[in-house]
């Protein structure tokens, strides 16, 4: 059986079709999941893509947490199945309590939109795939609130359980410990500020995003 990936659409999401296109490039079928439907349509993995869910009203991700689809994502995650949040999707997953910490406004109050170099810090999670610790990836970021922060105890736990997934080589936004991506303790839920779906062709400057998405897909046991 082939792996099917669900891509969640909130009002204001704007990376769902880029994500679907990127998955198509690696031969993976995806379905769009409307936030108002309390179903994941039997998918094997879930991606919460970038954008401005519910207009980022109150805080990025604060309203999205209440969408009917989120209960199903909580259940899917609790079963140990893979969930990836990209950019606004990462913010949604932290607000939903699926990932530790929070994303605050960038240091310097700058919206940053540029390719950044990332170092793989851990591969013991749902999209490790073919990557190795220390590998360098070039993937674009595009955000205003990507400055990762958590309290000291949480940071110690992240280190202890190898939950820092990616670090910026040259910190663009003030993130604590240069963190660009983290996982939950079990490793099946990952959130990242960079956009792997925008690094899928040499015409765009990099294909490194395909390795990230491919890793997610490899880890999803296809439904029988």
């Amino acid at each position: 059986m082939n792996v099917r990936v669900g891509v969640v659409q909130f009002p204001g999401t704007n990376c769902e079709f880029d994500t679907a296109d990127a998955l198509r490039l690696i031969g993976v079928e995806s379905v769009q999941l409307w936030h108002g439907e309390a179903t994941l349509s039997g998918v094997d993995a879930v991606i919460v893509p970038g954008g401005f869910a519910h207009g980022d009203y109150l805080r990025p991700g604060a309203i999205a947490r209440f969408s009917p689809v989120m209960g199903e994502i909580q259940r899917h995650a609790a079963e140990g199945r893979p969930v990836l949040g990209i950019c606004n999707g990462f913010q949604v997953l932290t607000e939903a309590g699926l990932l530790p910490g929070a994303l605050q406004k960038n240091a310097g109050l700058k919206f940053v939109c540029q390719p950044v170099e990332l170092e793989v810090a851990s591969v013991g999670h749902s999209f490790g795939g073919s990557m190795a610790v220390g590998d360098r990836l070039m993937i674009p970021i595009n955000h205003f609130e990507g400055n990762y922060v958590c309290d000291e105890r949480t940071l110690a736990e992240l280190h202890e359980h190898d939950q820092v997934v990616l670090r910026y080589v040259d910190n663009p936004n003030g993130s604590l410990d240069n963190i660009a991506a983290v996982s939950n303790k079990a490793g099946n839920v990952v959130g990242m500020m960079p956009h792997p779906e925008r690094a899928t062709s040499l015409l765009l400057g990099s294909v490194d995003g395909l390795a990230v998405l491919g890793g997610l897909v490899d880890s999803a046991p296809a439904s029988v």
Partner: protein
Amino acid sequence: MKWSVLVEVSPRAGISDPEGATVERSLPALGFESVSGVRIGKAIRFEVDAPDATAAESMVSDMCDRFLTNPVIEDARITVEASTVEASTVEASTVEAVG
């Protein structure tokens, strides 16, 4: 009875506030050289029905913990006062909710 609520959300101590810092750096351009400690947050106003001010504060504090603020990065200052009709009978009270 009805209570008027003001929730002031601000970045927690130790959390950077680039918006406040930018405003602070800009004020001297207008000749305001003596300003420091600018913090920018948001204000949320609404009314609730509750039997007394303590019950109203407790309800709002719960809202702050679970929705109105992200306790990882934000603090809330809650002010509850009797809605204008009963304003003369109950004094305003303020509690600090630290997430």
